């Protein structure tokens, strides 16, 4: 009789184990199906330039089961303005934040006090010191160099003595510093003269006409600067014929003016990939460990009026908008 009780006990134990296993499986399944909340904070988030990046993020959010919240923002004038938005999002108990910092300087100290357990990924630009956070950025140095290559290719020997004006954008961002350094380094030995470099945060105001008359080539290192340069040239059409514009950007406006011939060449970062990669990396961090992370670089495209409609370029440049 004892033997029967023993067998019965074994069976009951087996059933209990099966039950526990099922509960564990169910918990695993729930954990797997658990959706993380991630906020995306970029400057001027409604700008066209972010369309491709948002598409990439949304694609990745679908693939990796992330609830993405792209915060509606205007252009951030100061770091503090941006940090205020970050604090607000962190207080909403988000699991992670994808950030495009308006300034790479002094950001680390400020962010260290804000983030406790949230995963953080920097978009487009890193901050100093670079090794503490994960970032997904374009090859900024390469992009600057690519712009220089376009000029050198278009002008060849004729570059000698040409005056170049650079709209350097927000030089508080490491990305912009890298682009500028990439460009200037590549231009070294070309005998072209960099007449001026204008930073967006500079207090110095220069008359547009005066600026344009000083240079033969205008180089804009980010989307906003390129759009601004386009606006300059549209306002002063006679200078537009003389002054060639080389820029960086992805918005429909800059692409349109590339198509129109106002922009000679355009360096386009693969923002879809950047958006996708950032969310993918975020998912990896949230699912495994926030301490493990690897910064990554995405590529870029160099387009001009001739190759704008090439099939491969079309697919990257033009978002499918309904």
């Amino acid at each position: 009789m004892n033997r029967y009780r023993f067998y019965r006990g074994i069976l009951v134990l087996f059933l209990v184990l099966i039950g526990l296993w099922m509960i564990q499986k169910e918990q695993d399944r729930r954990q797997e199906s658990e959706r993380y909340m991630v906020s995306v904070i970029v400057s001027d988030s409604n700008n066209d330039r972010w369309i491709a990046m948002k598409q990439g993020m949304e694609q990745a959010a679908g693939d990796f089961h992330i609830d993405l919240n792209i915060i509606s923002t205007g252009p951030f004038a100061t770091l503090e303005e941006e940090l205020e938005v970050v604090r607000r999002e962190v207080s909403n108990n988000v699991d992670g934040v994808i950030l495009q910092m308006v300034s790479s300087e002094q950001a680390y100290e400020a962010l260290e006090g804000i983030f406790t357990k949230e995963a953080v990924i920097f978009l487009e630009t890193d901050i100093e010191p670079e090794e503490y956070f994960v970032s997904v950025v374009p090859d900024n140095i390469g992009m600057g160099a690519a712009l220089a290559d376009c000029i050198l290719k278009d002008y060849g020997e004729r570059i000698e003595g040409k005056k170049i004006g650079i709209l350097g954008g927000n030089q508080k961002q490491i990305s912009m510093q890298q682009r500028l350094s990439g460009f200037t380094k590549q231009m070294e030995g070309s005998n072209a003269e960099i007449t001026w470099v204008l930073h967006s945060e500079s207090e110095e105001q220069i008359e547009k006409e005066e600026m344009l008359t000083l240079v033969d080539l205008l180089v804009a290192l980010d989307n906003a600067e390129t759009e601004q340069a386009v606006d300059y040239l549209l306002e002063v059409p006679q200078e537009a014929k003389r002054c060639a514009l080389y820029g960086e950007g992805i918005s429909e406006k800059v692409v349109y003016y590339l198509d129109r011939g106002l922009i000679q060449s355009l360096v386009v970062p693969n923002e879809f990939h950047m958006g996708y990669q950032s969310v993918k990396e975020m998912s990896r961090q949230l699912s495994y460990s926030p301490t493990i992370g690897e910064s990554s670089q995405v590529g870029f495209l160099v387009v001009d009026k001739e190759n704008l409609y090439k099939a491969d370029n079309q697919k990257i440049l033009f978002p499918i908008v309904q």
Partner: protein
Amino acid sequence: MKGLFFQREHKALPIQLIISVSFTIVSICCMGILGFTLYRFLVQKMEDITIESSEQILDQTAINLETYLRNMRRISDTMYYSVIKDKDLATDTMAEEMNLLYEANKDNLISIACYTNEGELVAAVPVATEKEDIRIVEQEWFTDAVGRMENFHFSTPHVQNLFDNTSYRYYWVISLSRAVELTNNGSSRLGVLLVDMNYSSIEQLLKKANVNHSMEYVYLIDREGEIIYHPRQKLLNMHLLEENNQIAASYEDGSHKEYFQDEERLITVKTVSYTGWKIVSVTPKRVLSMGLTETRLFFVILMLLTMLMIIIINQLVSSSIAKPLQRLNESVKEWEAGNMNPEIYVGSFLEVEHLGKTLRSTVAQIRQLMEDILIEQEEKRKSELDALQSQINPHFLYNTLDSIVWMIEGERYDDAVFMVTQLASLFRVSLSRGKTIISISDEIRHAKNYMNIQKIRYKNTFTVDFQMEEDILKCCTVKLIIQPLLENAIYYGVQGMDGEGEIQIRGYRSKEDIYIEVRDNGIGMPKEVVCQLLSENNHAPKKGSGVGLINVHNRLKLRFGSCYGLEIESVPDEGTTVRIHLPYLIYTEEMQVLLESGKQKRQEEREQ
């Protein structure tokens, strides 16, 4: 090893265990086969359902797509046959009709345009400025239309590059182009009609097919395998993902299995009529496995539960079968343990009832037989006792009468009278009205009578001393047990000692026992002889009746039990002491009857 095997083989197992285990094994085997078969059936069914579901989705998508494309062709046909063919470009304008057509279908259209064979724009809706420096004749849709004039041509998705849009909008379109015949001043010339379909409309149609399918998806390719729509198209464009579209273009309509990037996939293909486009549904095998994991788990749990139930039911069934047999077995065990009147279980099944009844009857018969044997044995013992007792009387009578004869012959009449008187008293006690159990006082009287006779016979060559405690005189004894001892004391002890012989009879109580000692100071015996005296096969020299000590010893044991009887101590040349060991039992009528019947002894034996 063989021995062990046989040992195990012969080890009897409980019937309940055998029944339970046998049923369980058979049940589990059947369930296993059934479960596996059902599971395989289910897997096949699920695969069939998946294929069927994919085909349904594809059919529906293909119908929607064909309807959409048919509408586009109709627009093109209407534009060509109802507008272009009726117009002379020199005099007429087609703007109004084109506009009407566009307005009616503008949800699905980006533009309608008509070009001459030299790429000159004839008309277009919506009205827009044509881009400068644009080389229409080099665009793919144009070359296709001019190259194969009899057909419609559907392009792959591309960004429209025709008109200037100051709102910076660029449209993804699929161009439907065809060669048309334009009339100008009565003469005809070649032209191209272009209907740019909004790619978003096609995208929407296919997106519907991809709703709620996280891992299963549908994509659209043209006849060369170029992707027209894919749910993860951007990733493909950026080479972050790969698709087996080139191979899929070679598949016939229907379901196929393929291995792509180390993954088995179920592919269902449906060709869209006229265009040659193919809608491809992809179901990774792991999707089926994921669904099956739950099913497998469900099956395992179901089987385990069923097994548990079967085991419990088996136990109940086996218990109900085995229980009556076990109860019958318990009855037999009780009987084996010595209970001669066990409660034999009778009931349950017919067979068990029959066995129980038979066993009950057998037990009753055996009990009766044993009782008969007991009575028989008691009778035998009684007759044996009687025989032993009857062995004494002739022996003693012979000796006494011999002494009387000897006295009469010696003319010692007073002594002879005394002897006869003593003999009469002795016989009175001996007879005791047929009793075997008498009081010790009677027995002592008998012994004294005997010794008086013997003293005369032996001319007072020895002395006799009786020292009896008063307390024991009223107790029970078997009659005629002292006299043989006295006889032995005379014959083997003091005979021939010429007045120095002493015989002492001492009776006393020790706790619940009585001891009566007969001691002489005769020649004594060696230890070996003493040891043989009380054994059944003793060869000690016998005088008198030849019965002697063993007779008395056996009588005491038979009557009072094996722990009673005689004890002999003897030292050569110093004397012999024979000690009678009796239980302390007060002589009453009841006790006498009890002892006579032998029940007292049996009771004591049982207690021991």
